[in-house]
């Protein structure tokens, strides 16, 4: 018995190596994250985005429906009144404070469903990592669409890496 195994041993090795070499020729499925990123599906539920109208005014009116719809209670909204001198959104009311605890968020998208003005949507950003829990409280400035459009967060992700991760100290 043992003799048979000794004789066939090199064959086994050759078969195993053949498998190894076969895979060498196949395309690579992993990517060099974070230098390279995978494209996300168009309806990816990542970090939230607060949108603006074309004229730059915020869509959010501070109605707090997202906050009440949120099953984990991770959204805090406080509203205030627009004045002619300080106009943030069209109409009477805007969100003075808009905060999401991204650690508590379960990315269910209910906030998006609840919003009567399509002001909040789930964005493509998923690479949320940081070194302190406090840094996961996203305030309005973190969530708001930048004034000039066509900035990464708002664009629908195409095949190319959509959101350049912020440079981090590793």
């Amino acid at each position, binding site marked *: 018995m043992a003799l048979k195994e000794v004789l066939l041993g090199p064959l086994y090795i050759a078969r195993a190596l053949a498998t190894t070499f076969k895979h060498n020729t196949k395309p690579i499925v992993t990517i060099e994250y974070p230098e390279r990123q995978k494209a996300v599906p168009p309806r990816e539920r990542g970090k939230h985005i607060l949108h603006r109208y074309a004229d730059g005014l915020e869509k959010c*009116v*501070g*109605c*707090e*429906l997202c*906050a*009440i719809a949120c099953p984990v209670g991770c959204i805090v909204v406080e*509203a*205030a*009144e627009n004045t002619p001198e300080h106009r943030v959104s069209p*109409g*009477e*009311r805007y969100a003075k404070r808009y905060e999401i605890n991204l650690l508590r968020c379960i990315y269910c998208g209910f906030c998006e469903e609840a919003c*009567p*003005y399509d002001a909040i949507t789930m964005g493509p950003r998923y690479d949320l990592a940081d070194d302190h829990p406090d840094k996961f409280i996203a305030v309005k400035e973190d969530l708001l669409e930048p004034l000039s459009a066509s900035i990464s967060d708002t664009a629908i992700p195409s095949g190319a890496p959509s959101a350049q991760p912020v440079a981090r100290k590793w």
Partner: protein
Amino acid sequence: MAAVQTDQVTLTINGQSVTVPKGTLILDAAKKIGIDIPIFCSHPKMAPVAVCRMCLVEVEKLPKLQPACAVYVADGMVVKTTTEQVGKYQKDVLGFLLINHPLDCPICDKGGECPLQDQTYQYGPGASRFDFPKAHFDKSVPLSDKILLDRERCILCWRCTRFSEEISGERELALIQRGTNTIIGTFNDEPAQSNYQGNWTEICPVGALTSRQYRFISRPWDLDRTASICPACSMGCNIQIDARSNRIGRFQSRENVAVDDSWLCDRGRFSFPNFQRQGQERPRVRRNGSLEEVSYEEAIAFTADALKHAGGQVAGWASPADTNEELFLFSRLFREVLKSAHLDHRSGVVADAEPDDIALPIADIERCDQVVVLGGQGVIDAAPVLHLRLFKSERKGVKILKVGVTEGKRALDAIPAEAQAIGILATEADKQAAVDLQAKLAKKVKGSVRRLIVTTGPNGRGAKDLGILPHQGPGYASLNGRAGRGRLQWPGAGVKGLYVHESSPLHGFVPSDAESMWLSTLPLVVFHRFKASPLDEVAHVILPGHAFTEKYGTVTNMEGRVQRIRRGIDAEWVREDWRVLQQVANALGASWAYESVEEITGDLVRELPPYAAVNQEARVLWSEST
């Protein structure tokens, strides 16, 4: 056998039989057996108008649908509120109401507690079939510095105009234009002057009338609601403290038919900014001329030491906005521990308080046939919600005589000898005039003559009951010649120390010029208070305390009703006032061991048995006569 004639009628609603008194509306009869009929214009305190047509129900033998809010029950009536016809009609009328309603619920302050929203969900159509432009009106029109009117949201239920006409009698709001162009407004668009405007926001079934103070502050579901008592005057109106994130958003009324009849005045309703806490504060003690932050223990030890030093020559002033429990401890601290009778809660000279001052309960004003308001507007200003009670009584046929304090004779002449029940209302400053008039009237007329003296502060009556007075002990007991001095005499009475306790900036210790001079020379001023005041400048110890809205306890209103106040705002880093008072007393040698406010209340009731009324939130009856 002849049928027994009764004032009860029996009718059937949705197959359920219900017996109610004659003159009951179908709506109320249905409510009695738990059947909900949707309404907008109907209001229990106002005469039916049946303008919104939401409450139409089927009544057998009548061809048309009948408004449940305006049709009185009849014996054998058969009412159906859930038939297909009624259900379809309810969808129709909500559809009608919504075609010109802007549906801007996301930005509307009423959203979440809006009857139109709720009833649309419950009874309304799922979608609109109206695809034309809605009628547009002015939005957020300032009606006054307190109220904003959104004319688009208005569904013309007339509640506010009827309030203005039937409840406050001021007729400030009116309907202008007609048809779909109808709007609510004031005469010539002048700002509304009423002192009861806040009630408009509460009765409005949509977000048309909203408070400017509460504008966009919160959503109803975010509010923590606490039942309490209004801190503004001695009326003792029941309120609900609505707070968001531990900050007061608004005061809402809470119906107590015996006191406020579900209304509030603007002075009370909009008084809450006085009770907003700014930042955290620690006790302070003046050392070498400047105040230094210390711990409570240190401050209490310092206070006790200084009070001991001053001996029996310490005066105590407690605010008429303190709770009975605090006043009880305050009085014991002075009378038992410090052996001082220099106690007061008043700011000026007023006649002695007597149990007879509450002989006329507020609700009994309606049952008098003549009411003299001695001091006219002065009385109303002291307790504005009284006006609503007086106006309601007047509409019921009670004769209201508003006379100046010196015009008692006019009232005396005007009241006929055959009057059955006469009431006299006066402020405590004018009490003597009221007593004189009462004596004269009692001689002239056959019926009863009772008075109600309007006190100062939400617990002015309690302060008198508990003997925060230099010459009367708890329960109006005589001090047998061991009376102390009142506040006005303190500057010349050799007082060596002053302990001021206040929990409401509305009823604080405001020194007169003479008092300011005296205070600056006083060797000890202990200031136990909620909010900073000019008195901080001369204080040697500042002990932070809780505000009226931040604590548990009981207060006694002008008619002697003991009602509970509750903690609407949590300021737990501030030590409870009663605990501080107890620790000061214990440091001075007492051995009090109260663990909760309830224990103090219990002791208070043991000492003053009439205060057992606190258990029913009833009036304190000092004797059979009251």
